[in-house]
């Protein structure tokens, strides 16, 4: 079953690619839709079935497809494993991905490269499933890289605009920087455990064999991978630019796949991070700073998709706080709820963008609540969910994380996280009010939306509203179903129910005040932020991090390249060779001058030689 789950998307991607390449004319709409949407549907059913199996108490499922490589101790199989963690992941990934596929079928209907799009899309899902279901780090890494590759392809989907490709390159290269760390982690892990097998279960068993120093390095290296994929400081700059792709791609990247991979990875290696509280704290701080930074930047953006992108980064920061502090289940739970509302937000935004003929600036929209009623309602639910208003999904998951931070007694993290929560409500409602409530500056022509676009919204809205109930804490009368099911090595924190209520109340209060502030400022008329003060200029330009990177990395590479091309190669290395060549040439010129065609001179040369020989003989024979 697991084999089929992984292979099917790859297979359908392959089939569609072959069909598309053999005839690129925009036809066969039905064929592509059937295969492209059909395969995620089937794998959703299969994933849910396997989840059901595990729910009923079945042990972890292992399947082996074939032997991948076999050199020395490096024996790697293409094999898959569904434990509770991966089952939770694949269930919601496939579920949400299916709806995004359905949505995309409507969204991309008129695109010439419809087949190509679905081929990439299925490749994306397949890679993500490979990543999640992998039984050993190597397979996981392959999935990990392929996710990066397919995101590259999808972000650069509109390839005629050069800047889209730049965005895609940026995404892939930064991901690859992460992979650079990841592969070092894996290699180190393998070398340290050489000979004891290299699947997750055997690593878990033998983890105590590794000295702590090495383990620390491994933990940090692996997290570098997560930084790249999950867009954390300092490797986050690709995420906003990744909005260059079609909106369903953004929804898929941000909700179900790719960015959550980092969190999943840390949870998957929880048995390592469990041993390394210091590294965990480092992760948590990175997460907290990312969350805050992204929230601040998001408050000053005006592109609807970029605001959502920064909000993703911010929420990912929460997840890393959770996993860093050892609350793996809470992290995964937030991944789970976040998937619903973030997918919904992106799809809603996509709907708005289509309805307004590809307008993305929220300050050029306004008053859309009448025209796009369904989008309005669903987006409202999603916004409430992300802001953490009970009883919507976001509240429970975010609350669990905040509580962990408080209980861990790292108060700086807690303050940052709580502040970010308020800020989240502010910028999300800023978006919401500007788009739906504010009076538009000029009358908008709105185009009606396809059913395949709107219906998935309803399903996801339902999910956003209710998904949180799976993980209700004991304090709120639940029994944290999902946490118990996941059975990850959580660091247990004890916190009294009253403190919990207090914290929850504080969060809701902050969220509400953020919401009110946004209402005041943007509900009536929404104005674009202007770069009037130093501070706003800094934020609108995203703290000049991109420019900084360009200056620090891209420029030096180009400079050194030119240095090599214009100086080192021709002057120094070829210099040695050309010195010799020049010498030969000069000597040759000299000799050709000697040979001037006058026989007299030739006689002179002969005589010179003879004369020298005579001198030598006189000297040698001692004639004098």
């Amino acid at each position, binding site marked *: 079953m697991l084999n089929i789950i992984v292979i099917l998307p790859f297979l359908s991607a392959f089939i569609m690619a072959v069909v598309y390449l053999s005839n690129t004319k925009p036809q066969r709409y039905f064929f592509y839709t059937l295969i492209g949407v059909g395969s995620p549907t089937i794998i959703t059913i299969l994933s849910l079935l396997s989840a059901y199996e595990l729910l009923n108490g079945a042990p972890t499922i292992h399947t082996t497809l074939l032997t991948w490589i*076999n050199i020395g101790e*490096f024996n790697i199989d293409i094999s898959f494993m569904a434990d509770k963690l991966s089952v939770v992941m694949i269930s919601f990934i496939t579920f949400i991905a299916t709806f995004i596929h359905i949505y995309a079928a409507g969204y991309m209907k008129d695109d010439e490269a419809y087949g190509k799009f679905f081929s990439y899309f299925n490749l994306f899902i397949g890679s993500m499933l490979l990543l999640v279901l992998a039984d050993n780090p190597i397979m996981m*890494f392959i999935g990990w890289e392929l996710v990066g590759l397919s995101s590259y392809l999808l972000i650069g989907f509109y390839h005629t605009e*050069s800047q889209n*490709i730049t965005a895609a390159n940026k995404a892939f290269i930064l991901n690859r920087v992460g992979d650079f760390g990841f592969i070092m982690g894996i290699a*180190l892990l393998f070398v340290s455990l050489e000979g004891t097998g290299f699947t997750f279960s055997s690593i878990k068993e033998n983890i105590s064999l590794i000295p702590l120093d090495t383990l620390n390095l491994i933990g940090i290296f692996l997290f570098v991978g997560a930084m790249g994929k999950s867009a954390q400081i300092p490797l986050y700059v690709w995420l906003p630019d990744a909005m260059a792709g079609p909106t369903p791609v953004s929804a898929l990247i941000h909700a179900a796949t790719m960015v959550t991979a980092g969190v999943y990875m840390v949870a998957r290696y929880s048995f390592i991070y469990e041993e390394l509280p210091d590294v965990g704290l480092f992760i948590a701080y990175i997460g907290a700073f990312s969350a805050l930074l992204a929230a601040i930047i998001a408050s000053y953006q005006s592109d609807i998709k970029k605001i959502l992108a920064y909000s993703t980064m911010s929420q990912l920061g929460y997840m890393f706080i959770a996993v860093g502090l050892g609350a793996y289940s809470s992290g995964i739970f937030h991944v789970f709820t976040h998937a619903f509302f973030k997918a919904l937000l992106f799809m809603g935004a996509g709907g708005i963008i289509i309805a307004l003929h590809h307008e993305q600036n929220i300050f050029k929209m306004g008053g859309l609540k009448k025209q796009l009623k369904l989008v309005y309602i669903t987006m409202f639910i999603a916004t409430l969910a992300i802001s953490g208003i009970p009883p919507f999904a976001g509240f429970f998951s975010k609350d669990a994380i905040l509580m962990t931070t408080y209980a861990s007694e790292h108060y700086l993290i807690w303050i940052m996280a709580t502040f970010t929560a308020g800020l989240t409500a502010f910028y999300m409602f800023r978006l919401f009010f500007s788009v739906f409530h504010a009076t538009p500056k000029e009358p908008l022509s709105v185009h009606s939306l396809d059913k395949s676009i709107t219906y998935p919204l309803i399903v996801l809205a339902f999910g956003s509203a209710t998904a949180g109930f799976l993980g209700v804490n004991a304090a709120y009368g639940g029994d944290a179903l999902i946490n118990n099911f996941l059975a990850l090595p959580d660091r247990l924190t004890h916190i009294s129910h009253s403190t919990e209520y207090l914290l929850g109340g504080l969060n809701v209060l902050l969220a509400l005040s953020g919401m009110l502030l946004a209402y005041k400022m943007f509900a009536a008329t929404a104005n674009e932020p202007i770069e009037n003060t130093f501070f706003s200029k800094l934020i609108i330009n995203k703290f000049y991090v991109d420019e900084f990177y360009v200056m620090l990395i891209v420029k030096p*590479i180009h400079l050194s390249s*030119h240095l*090599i091309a214009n100086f080192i*190669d021709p002057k120094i290395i070829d210099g040695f060779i050309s010195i010799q060549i020049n010498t030969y040439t000069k000597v040759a010129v000299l000799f050709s001058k000697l040979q001037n065609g006058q026989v007299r001179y030739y006689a002179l040369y002969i005589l010179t030689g003879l004369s020298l020989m005579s001198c030598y003989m006189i000297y040698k024979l001692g004639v004098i």
Partner: protein
Amino acid sequence: MSNILTNIIFLPLFIAVILGVLRAPLKLLKVGAFFSSILVLLLVVFVIIDFDPKGNMQLITYLPWIQSAGIFYYIGVDALSLVVLTLIVLLMPPLYLYMYHEKRKGYWYNMMILQTGVTGAVLSLDLMLFYLFWETMLLPIFIMIGMYGSGMHQYNSMKITLMTILGSMSMLFSILYIGYIYFETYGIWSFSLDKLSLLSFNPQTSLWLTAGFLLAFVIKIPLVGFHTWMAPAYGSAPTPAVVIMSSIMAKLGIYGIWRFGFTLFEETLLFYTPFIITIALIGLLYYAIRAVSENNLRRMFAYSSGSHLSLIALGLFVNNIYAWGGSLYFIATHALASAGMFIMIGLTYQRFRTLDINSLGGIAQKAPLFTFFFAFFALSIAGIPGTGGFVAELLIIIGAFKENFILGFLTSFTMLSAMIYIFWMLQRVLFGQPNNSTPFADLNIKETLMLLPLVILLILTGVVPSLFTPYFEPYLTQLLGVAS
């Protein structure tokens, strides 16, 4: 069956000579060349079927040639040479297909002679015989660059020839001196590898002899510092010659170190190991960074191939099975990928008549199939999972980590090195708006068929390496057992 290897080596030359004597018309020549390459491919398939991965040197032919000087016609095949041999014969048919429109007869003859040269060099086990084939393969390259090249081809062909001959000369001196030492010790002349490997040299002599060999191989690879012939030669050679240089001849440098260096100078090479690893690490990034500012597509991939060959050399000098396996695997997969890439570049040139990256662009809009193949080969050079390059890079990284942490860390930069230029190149060549109004035809069926085997092989090597590894894994284990 016993002289199957001889047939493999000399069949192309034989057919070339017959066609030349008959003054065959162009059409017959084309058919003959292609037929010879297919026939050789079939023969190699027979060899592979019969091959026993656990055995040593197999299918040995040992005939006296110049007996008074102890030079024998001594050939044989083991896992190492089988890998290189297989990739040579795999690449020839697509190259002949690529050359289909070529009207100059000399071109075809040169290719056939070249094939004999490279297969002979791979299979020979007598040092003099090896030297003979080693020089044989240089001559056609010289002619092909000099006569059929573009740009400053005459200058460049002289440059490659002189630099390579410098290496060959030093190797010849070493070979002769080794033979002489053998003569001193045993009283007869011999240049057979297995006999010479019994010799033990005094350390000082051995250093010089090894340096003589290494110089030849290092120039052929080329590692940084010996590379200035590479970009000009690649830039002005015709595509088939480029493919042979990058995919086969460069690998023969690695093969030479492996076969002759490790057999004869096991201990002395340890002395050179730190130097070579340092040079290779420098080369890994040096070439990659150099490629960034290169505007000629072919030269860019010349540097790219230099970067990857540095990695292969690095893996060769890291003494464990992962790094060696990775190196050997990389030899094959990089040959396939770079052959594909250079063929794609050749096709681009045929269509656009330029290789300047800045004047290309927008190909994706006009030719999806072409784009697919181009991007596939470029990405497989970059080592994307699912292509063989990834497996090899992974193995080499693991091997380097096993050696020590710092080396592993530095080797991992291979993950980034190709990124630096390949993606920017793809952006400017394939995507964006076309800068060039020339109509761009998509791949036709013939071109697709020529490239498809390479694509399939690359994917197979990436997805199921276990199909291929059993052929050389026992050999490596055995070699390591001997070494340790």
